């Protein structure tokens, strides 16, 4: 039977307010200087210069060991910085994936050579990662991937095709899930993850334009690409475990409930100081949900710090958080009669952007249906 954590367990050893103020003043100066324009769902957008300035502030690789350029800060401090960056609608695409999951993956399971060469570059904001999981015939069912690497002297030779790869056209590296041993009865055995330089002989990246008309997704083709031995993560063959761990990181952060916070902010401004009852209740319903999901996300940071499993909490949080992200523009369009338009006001532009991008929120990083299956398993039903 679950009980409450008591107040002392929630106590934060750091001055949270001071850190938040610091990030806010950095962001305010950035906006003032035209460093970026706040926009919803902006954490996918690449802006190398902005990422490098984040790096100067120490906002990348915050929790990693100093030996690899990291800041040795707590998970809670990183959470605070990420929340502030996301709530401000800052463009984080050039470092987000590397900071959130690829870097931690390399730190946990990478060779020492890989750690020494890549982690400091990520921390400096100079190294962009993409995630090579999905394939044309493998979306949610990753065990069925066909991309494969065969062993050769000193490394691996990689052949295959990945799709819907976000920002591969900006990426320096891609962590590619591939089959390194033939499929057996245990469909999850024999998979491995390789760290593959994208600008490399045999790698070609082709755009897949999304329904909003944007080029974020790509098809990536590997044609006999040589990958050195020390670019293998883990022992080889244990890729499924690595992917599962990595996805827990991918699913547990504030990017899973703040993607449309900018809309909520603009909505509140548009409605003004004196909402009618309908407006107040609708906005309040969203705020209530946001606070609840955010509280759950903070409990995940505590679980991480305590070295405990976050799979159930992270999966629940992503499911509810992405649903909230989708609900925000839908409430906004009902509360205010505004024509969403890419050429309209700030509010109209962001609303237009959110409506057309919303379907992706509950697909990327694990579909809603997969998440519910994981929760069911965690509850002992599978």
């Amino acid at each position, binding site marked *: 039977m679950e009980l409450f954590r008591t*107040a002392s367990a929630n106590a934060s050893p750091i001055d949270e307010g001071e850190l938040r103020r610091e990030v806010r003043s950095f962001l305010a100066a950035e906006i003032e200087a035209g460093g970026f324009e706040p926009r919803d769902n902006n954490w996918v957008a690449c802006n190398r210069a902005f990422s490098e300035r984040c790096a100067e502030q120490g906002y990348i690789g915050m929790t990693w060991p100093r030996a690899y350029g990291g800041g040795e800060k707590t998970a809670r401090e990183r959470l605070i910085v990420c929340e502030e960056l996301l709530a401000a609608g800052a463009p984080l695409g050039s470092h987000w994936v590397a900071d959130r999951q690829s870097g931690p993956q390399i730190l946990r399971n990478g060779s020492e050579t890989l750690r020494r060469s890549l982690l400091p570059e990520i921390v400096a904001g100079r190294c962009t990662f993409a995630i090579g999981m999905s394939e044309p015939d493998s979306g949610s069912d990753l065990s069925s991937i066909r991309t494969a690497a065969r062993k050769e002297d000193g490394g691996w030779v990689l052949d295959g095709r990945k799709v819907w790869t976000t920002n591969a056209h900006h990426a320096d590296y891609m962590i590619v899930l591939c089959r390194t041993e033939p499929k057996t009865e245990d469909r999850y055995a024999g998979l491995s993850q390789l760290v593959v330089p994208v600008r490399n002989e045999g790698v070609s990246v082709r755009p897949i334009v999304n329904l909003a008309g944007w080029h974020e997704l790509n098809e990536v083709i590997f044609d006999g690409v040589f990958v050195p031995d020390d670019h293998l993560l883990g022992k080889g063959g244990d890729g499924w475990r690595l992917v599962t761990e990595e996805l827990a990181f991918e699913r547990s952060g504030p990017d899973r409930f703040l993607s449309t916070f900018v809309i909520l902010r603009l909505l509140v401004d548009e409605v003004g100081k004196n909402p009618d009852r309908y407006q107040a209740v609708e906005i309040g319903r969203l705020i209530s949900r946001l606070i609840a999901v955010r509280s759950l996300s903070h409990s995940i940071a505590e679980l991480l710090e305590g070295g405990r499993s976050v799979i159930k909490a992270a999966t629940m949080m992503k499911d509810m958080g992405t649903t909230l992200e989708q609900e925000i523009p839908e409430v906004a369009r009902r509360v205010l009669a505004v024509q969403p338009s890419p050429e309209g006001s700030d509010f109209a532009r962001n609303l237009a952007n959110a409506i057309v991008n919303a379907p992706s929120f509950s697909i990327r990083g694990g579909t809603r249906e997969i998440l519910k299956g994981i929760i069911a398993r965690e509850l002992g039903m599978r």
Partner: protein
Amino acid sequence: MSDTARLLADSVDTFLARHAEATEAELLAALQSSGFAMALASEDHGGLACSWSEAAIVARLWGYHAAPLPIVEMLMAGQIASAAADPDLAPSLAVASMSSGDGQTAIAAHHAGQRFCLAAREGAVVAFPIPMESGEIATTIASEPYRRIPFPTDGTASFSRPLPPHSEILRRGTILTTARMLGAMDRIVEIIIEHAKLRTQFGRPLAKFQLVQTLISDAASEVDATRAALERALLFLDRAWDDDLAWYAAKGQAARAATLVAANAHQLMGAIGFTQEHVLHAYTRRLWAWRDAWLSQTGAEEALGRRACEAGGGRLWSLLADMPGPAFASEND
């Protein structure tokens, strides 16, 4: 969770399990002698000097066991009486959760020992003897008794003791109600998981059907979101911080969760759960009532929306993210 809290949880759990078959009168007598109702009172006053988080454990377990008696109001009575240096008042004090729209009556959950009523009248908190003639006991959809107690007409509130402001009484009653709701929802999730594993249809357990898994996953997610929101509200309450957000959010979330959890549970249990015989209704009927007990779901949502609009977009994030500061530190609880 501290050792004190764990000990309290174990004792209350054991107490409620032992009195599962007791009548309401028997439970009331046992509760008054157990001292759990005085959890929030100081040790000098025979209480346990619990924090609000610890008191919430008591309320949560009451919900978990579908136990009768207005435990939320009784815990508050213990705290208020102790803070007013009159602990003997606690067993006979009804704490009204609301007043009627016409300002004529206070509405309070009922138990047999009540002689006095504490309620808000035109924003001021007053305490007065319950008139002999106000005997009409009504019930909620959970069959829990409540009374409409008329305010004294001669204008004399009977005693003047230091009382917390109405806003704080409302906040505390709402938070403890949320804890009780959480307990009921925790139990429902256990019941439906167990049912889904045991009940076989079409040759396999219900738990193997994806749609069934989804019904349960969604319920469990709502419950954990409620737990997280409640912990935040309790953190602020324990620290005596001002809070014009977290407790509203906790209630809004709990009520939203209650609607979904009750609906999914009944859907899953089918006709079995739609009977008097099955225990499910002891939880779901209470949840339906508690959604709007103390501060209503819509009341909480509206308050949040107004607060957000008042802050404006530029300060919205700060409103949500920044920790509030000390507020009612002077109060002697």
